[in-house]
Each structure stands twice: as C-alpha cells, then as structure tokens.
C-alpha cells in the first residue's frame, strides 16, 4: 500500500533542559490501524517517545508528522486541532477527581468547541448522548453521574477510555495504561483498547511493562533502550530472546 503513515518520526532527538538525552535520533513509521506496543525498561524513553507524538513534550530536533502534517511546526490553534486527532490514556488515569464521570468524558470533546462555549458548559445534546454511548461501550453507563473519585482504579481507566472514545481520535497513545491495575482489570482495559483498534479502526500505540499483555495484544513490537529504538518487528516473528534482551539489559541491537 502506498498510503502515508499515520505517525512518522524523522530524526527525532529530545534533550531535556537538564541535559538528559530522552530520545536519540528516532526514525519511526506507524501505519493506520496498527496496534503497536513499545517495550523497554523504566527510564528507557518510552514515555518520552509517546509524549513527543502529541507534543506534551517538545522535541529538540527532527520532525513528527501526523497523517502527513507536521505537529512540530503546528501553532496553538492548529496544534489543538491536531491533538484532537490523538487520544491519550495515562497510567494514573488523569481524571478530574472531583468532577462527574459525565463531565470527565465530555472533556474529550473540548477541542471541538470554542473555549467560551465549554466554559459555560454549552455542550450539545448530541455530544452528551455520544458520551453516554461511549460509557456504555466500556460498561460504565450506570456510573455516569458518579464522581470520578468514587470509582476504583479499573473503573477510572475505563472512564478514561470512554473519554478517548468520545474524542473520536485516529490515534490512541496509551502510556502504561495497566501499570496501576491488577492483572484481571489490566486485561479488561487492554480488551477495551483492542475494541477501539478493531471496531473504530484507531491506531494504537501503547507502552507496556507486561510482556505477557504485549504478546497477547500487540501486532508490532518496538523495543526502546536508552532513548533509542533497538528492536522493531511483527509480534508473531518476535522470539522471547528479544524481550529478554530488552529487559535484561543484554547486548545492543537485535535484528528480527
């Protein structure tokens, strides 16, 4: 297929203000509809890599294209519109604890409105309905008027997924979505992500700690160590030794 990649990173380097190198010359293409898992030790740069894609972290050098358009060069209004296409799920769920589930999920629609409208809570009925439907598809419909801090961790993460679903993005970045959840809930959350990937054809890029989950859900594996991509290959072609290498800090590069 000659279609352009959904995410394209060209020679991306990120150096933090304190001199730490976060990313070293990353080149990466991710196509539409892929389910990519990024594996690597803590501090390897997985999180930085994800946050570079939607510019929660600004990169130092290089360029990142989202659907062919540079997010690196995007200015405020345009940046908001590009971020609208990229949903994000966090390890710590990042719901607004004291707001209702409804309001948290509605936040996914913020970039579809001018700021003043949302400030006065003028969401359309259509969007409220969309919110409710999103909650239904993650099985959280009965909690719609609960406050976010009344929910368990797994429930909060599913509300966060509903928020992303309401946003209707083309890409989902999941930063350790299961790291603070128990194994059973983790699996549920991953199933939800899979649903977004398959049913809504969203491109999913997930950082995962659990090799087991990575193997069960990822189509493609990217291994990261010390800010560099050390492995990139299809899941079914990836032997266990690759994971061992990435996690045990074994020798340098691996070819698939």
């Amino acid at each position: 297929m000659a279609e352009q990649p959904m995410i394209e990173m060209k020679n991306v380097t990120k150096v933090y203000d304190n001199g730490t190198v976060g990313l070293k010359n990353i080149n990466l293409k991710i196509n539409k509809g892929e389910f990519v898992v990024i594996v690597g030790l803590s501090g390897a740069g997985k999180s930085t890599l994800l946050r570079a894609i939607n510019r929660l972290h600004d990169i130092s050098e290089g360029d990142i294209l989202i659907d062919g358009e540079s997010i690196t060069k995007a200015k405020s209004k345009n940046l908001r519109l590009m971020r609208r296409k990229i949903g994000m799920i966090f390890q710590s769920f990042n719901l607004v604890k004291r707001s209702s589930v409804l309001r948290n999920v509605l936040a996914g629609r913020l970039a579809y409105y001018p700021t003043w409208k949302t400030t006065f809570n003028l969401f359309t009925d259509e969007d409220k309905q969309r919110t409710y439907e999103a909650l239904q598809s993650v099985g959280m419909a009965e909690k719609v008027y609960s406050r976010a801090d009344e929910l368990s961790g797994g429930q909060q993460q599913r509300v966060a997924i509903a928020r992303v679903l309401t946003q209707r993005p083309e890409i989902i970045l999941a930063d350790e979505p299961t790291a603070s959840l128990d194994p059973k809930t983790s699996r549920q959350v991953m199933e939800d992500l899979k649903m977004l990937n398959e049913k809504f054809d969203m491109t999913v890029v997930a950082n995962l700690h659990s090799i087991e989950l990575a193997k069960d859900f990822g189509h493609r594996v990217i291994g990261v160590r010390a800010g560099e991509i050390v492995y990139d290959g299809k899941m079914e072609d990836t032997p266990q030794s690759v994971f061992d290498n990435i996690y045990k800090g074994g020798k340098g590069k691996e070819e698939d």
Partner: protein
Amino acid sequence: MDTTMKKLPPKPVTAKSRAIKWGGWIISIAIIIWSCTGIDFGGIKPTAGQITGAIFNGLFHPDWSYVYNGSGEDLVSQLWQTLCIAFLGTFISAIISVPFAFWAANTRHKKFWVSESGKIVLTFIRSFPEIVLALMFIKAVGPGAPAGALALGLHSVGMLAMLFSEAIESLDDGPAEAITAAGGSKFNVAVFATMPDLMPAIVSNTLYRFDVSVRSASVLGLVGAGGIGYPLIIALNYRQWSRVGIILLGIIVMVVVIDWISGAIRKKLV
C-alpha cells in the same frame, strides 16, 4: 571484640561560635534598650486604674438597652453591618484572587518570570494594612461601609491569592495533561482540570479569611469605614462605659460564633 562504647564527646565549641552566641545576645538586648528609648514612655497615667475599673464595670453592667432599639444605630444592626462588610470584602477578594492565583502559581510549562512577577504584585498588595487602604477608600468613596468592604476586599487579595496559588502548585498535573492532550486550550485546562480540584482549597481558605476579615472589620469603623468600630470609639470618647461593655461583648460573641461556624465547615471540607 571490644564491647565498650566510646563516651559521647562534648559538643565542639570554637571561639567563633561562642563569639556569635554572645554577640547575638548583646545585640538583641541593645536593640531592646534602644527601642525603649525611642518610645518616650511617660509612665502610667494616674487615671489608668480608674478607667480599667470603669471598663470592667461596664463589661459586667452592659447597657442592654443598646442591644436592639430599632433605630438602626443599635448593637445588632452595627454588628450585622460589620459582618456584611467582612462578607462582601471576602467575597470580592475571593473572586479577584482566582486570576491572580493562576498568574502567580509556579507550574510547569510556565516561564519563571511570569509567576515571579505575580508573586511580587501580591506581596505589594499585602504590604498595605487594611486601615491604610480604608483611609484611601474613604477619600475615594466617602466614609461608610462601602469603603470598608473595598479596603478588606483589596487587602485580602494579597493573602488569598497567594494561598490559592500555592494550592494550584500542589495539585497533581495529570488531569491538566489529559485535557491538553485532548486538544484543550489553556483556559480549558483551568476550567475543566484545575478549578474542580482547587475548589476545596478555595472554599476553605476563603472561610478562614472571612474569620480574619470579621476581626478587621470590627476595627475599620475606628477610621470611619463602617461597622461596629465607630460606635465603639464614640462610646469610648464619651466615657459611656456600659455601652463600651456591651459593644465589646457583642464583638466577642460575634467573633467566637463566626470562628466556630467556619471551623466546623472547614473541618467538613477536609
């Protein structure tokens, strides 16, 4: 194996540390003596005992008829006015404080000098005592309750906004990040992520400030900015001790009750 422990060695005292210690004492005492010479204390007036006695006598024989007489000049109406000044002043300042707090909060993704300039402005506002502000507002809007409310409102901003901005700084920035990632503007972040989580801090600090303002408002009348302070100074000047007594009792009761109520509400919030 040697099981005997060494004895605790004496704290090392050098000539320098000893000199600093003695120097500190000498300088402190010198400053106290020097400041006493500046006060020009003329001794206790011979009438002091008499007046103290009269005030106590007034406290124990308060002028109950002054409590309420329907004239609008009585104790209850004056206390009510004091409360209104404090409430309005605190309310005004709570609202003004929110944008100032966002300005002065030192959060991530923000230039250092922006929050620093905000903090300097707040310190500047705080440095004006409310009595001075009241005198200025009396010149601007004339004597009476409005001057008092404005003075309290402005003065409280200095402290409230600083407390709010500290609360903003201590918030988890995860929700803010989520809103940004969804394409929200900075204002969206403030409305959707920061404000809801900030609400308990805003309410609790405002209530606390209301406590303080009630006390300040009792004094503002002394310079003519409305409230219970005005009849108090009149009664003092005319030596109506029983009236002074009832006014003091009124202030005490009001402050204690407000303290108690706001304390109870704040305890619920935490």
